[in-house]
């Protein structure tokens, strides 16, 4: 009897396990990002946004929607993927995953796939919620969805790396809270970089989040802070870097095996 080349059932089992964790905490998983987004719409969309004019012929309330979706997708992808792989390391249940006929590549696919699925779902829910507050027309919905999936995949890969790197819960939160969130807020979620003084426009171009948010906004409104090709190249570059690190983890078993 020969073993199959791929353990699809094993990969599916991990994926389902991770999705079951999402279901167990469904209210918490959904309520927090939705409530936060609603608050952003009330504060920035209605209260402050009503005093701000259109940006690139787009109503300010609608303008912030792509950025708000990505704000959630970034943090949820990072948190879900890092927590997903860190918890079995922390609790010791990783022994079962490592002793199973699952390759490390399948393991990465399962954890990253589950985390990306969750954040894409949340992104779409936020998009639906936004439709209740603003009149939103998506210029290229298929591309927008494909881009959203790529972003979720990229940040879930990054989350997986954080989950492998972290040696404690504090470290798990360090990059999402202290690096990604500030960069996202300064990454053109609530404004176009054209609205900034020139020096800050130049500084902003060193923020990689600018490129990712701009690309996503392009597929909504047909315009962005930078060329959509630059955005796509940046996102693909980020994915390639993450895949490089993950493949090194796969090859060496770094912090997975002793």
């Amino acid at each position, binding site marked *: 009897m020969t073993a199959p080349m791929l*353990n699809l059932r094993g990969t599916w*089992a991990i994926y389902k396990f991770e999705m079951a964790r999402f279901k167990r905490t469904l209210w918490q998983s959904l309520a927090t990002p939705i409530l936060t987004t609603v608050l952003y719409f009330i504060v920035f969309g209605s209260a402050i946004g009503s005093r701000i004019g259109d940006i690139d012929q787009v109503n300010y309330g609608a303008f912030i929607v792509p950025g708000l979706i990505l704000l959630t997708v970034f943090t949820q992808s990072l948190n879900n993927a890092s927590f997903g792989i860190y918890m079995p390391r922390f609790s010791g249940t990783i022994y079962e995953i490592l002793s199973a006929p699952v390759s490390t590549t399948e393991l990465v696919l399962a954890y990253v796939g589950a985390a990306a699925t969750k954040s894409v779902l949340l992104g779409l829910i936020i998009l639906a919620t936004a439709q209740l507050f603003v009149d939103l027309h998506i210029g290229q919905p298929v591309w927008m969805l494909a881009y959203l999936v790529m972003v979720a995949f990229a940040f879930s890969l990054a989350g997986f790396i954080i989950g492998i790197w972290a040696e404690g819960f504090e470290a798990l939160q360090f990059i999402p809270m202290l690096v990604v969130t500030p960069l996202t807020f300064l990454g053109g979620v609530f404004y176009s970089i054209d609205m900034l003084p020139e020096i800050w426009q130049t500084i902003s171009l060193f923020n990689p989040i600018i490129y990712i948010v701009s690309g996503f906004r392009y597929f909504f409104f047909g315009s962005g802070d930078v060329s959509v090709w630059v955005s796509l190249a940046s996102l693909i570059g980020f994915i390639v870097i993450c895949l490089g690190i993950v493949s090194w983890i796969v090859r060496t078993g770094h912090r997975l095996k002793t």
Partner: protein
Amino acid sequence: MTALLSIENLDKRYAGGLHALKSVDLDIERGEIFALLGPNGAGKTTLINIVCGIVTPTSGHVTVDGRDTVREFRWTRRHTGLVPQELFTDMFETVHDTVSFSRGLFGLAPDPDHIERVLRDLSLWDKRDSPIMTLSGGMKRRVLIAKALAHEPKLLFLDEPTAGVDVELRRDMWRMIEKLRGTGVTIVLTTHYIEEAERMADRVGVIRRGEIILVEETDSLMKKLGRKHLSLHLEHPMSELPASLNDWTLTLADRGRRLDYSFAADEEHSCVPVLLKRLQAEGIEFTNLNTRQSTLEEIFVDLVHEDDDVHEEAG
């Protein structure tokens, strides 16, 4: 019998410098229960974890049923089960879900009948819908066993399965191990309860400081290394033994009222009748006699201490 598990020249040196396994060679025969004994830190868990794919060896290789555990890891892991020493369980999953997860993880199609059978055998069926965090330590241990059996392994590692469990569960576990042996599962057991190994194992291996120092059939080990102890309750207390008995390793105890004699288990038939005749010839009479065989635990302790002594002398 042919070896199901074959370990050749296995060496493990951890990054911190600890040399956990030193050129270990070991064959585990198909269908046997093998007890791997050794003090804490001897390398038992490292050895098991390498076979299961959790730890990467520094050198050497391992085959399960003739297949290399690295090149053909999907096949070997599919047929190997592990019950770890620590109670590593998810907290929020239910018993049924976590055991079903294990079956899927090892690449098998769902089989509710098999899962039910495993849960019933381990008295977990009534708890199937309970979250694992609500279970006692003993029940969690059963869950770990159920998870290891969910994918019907040919080779099962039980790493101290009865550590910290009550007597009832320990007996249940012995029954389960006997039952598994009946179905042809090969079992490698590590335990601190040597009585457990003595009771169940076909063969015993002793590992010390990363080296296998002995592998022997349990019965044969008891005969070869075991000691028997004969105690004679004397009719008349003695202050000292006659010089004519100096060539026997006899000792007086209980203020001269008891004569003790210790001898190798396989010398019983040759030496005891001779000793009794000698005592009769010396006019030493006794009212009662007791014999006792040394346990595997005593043999194990002797072996480990003997090895310590050798190390100390070498040092």
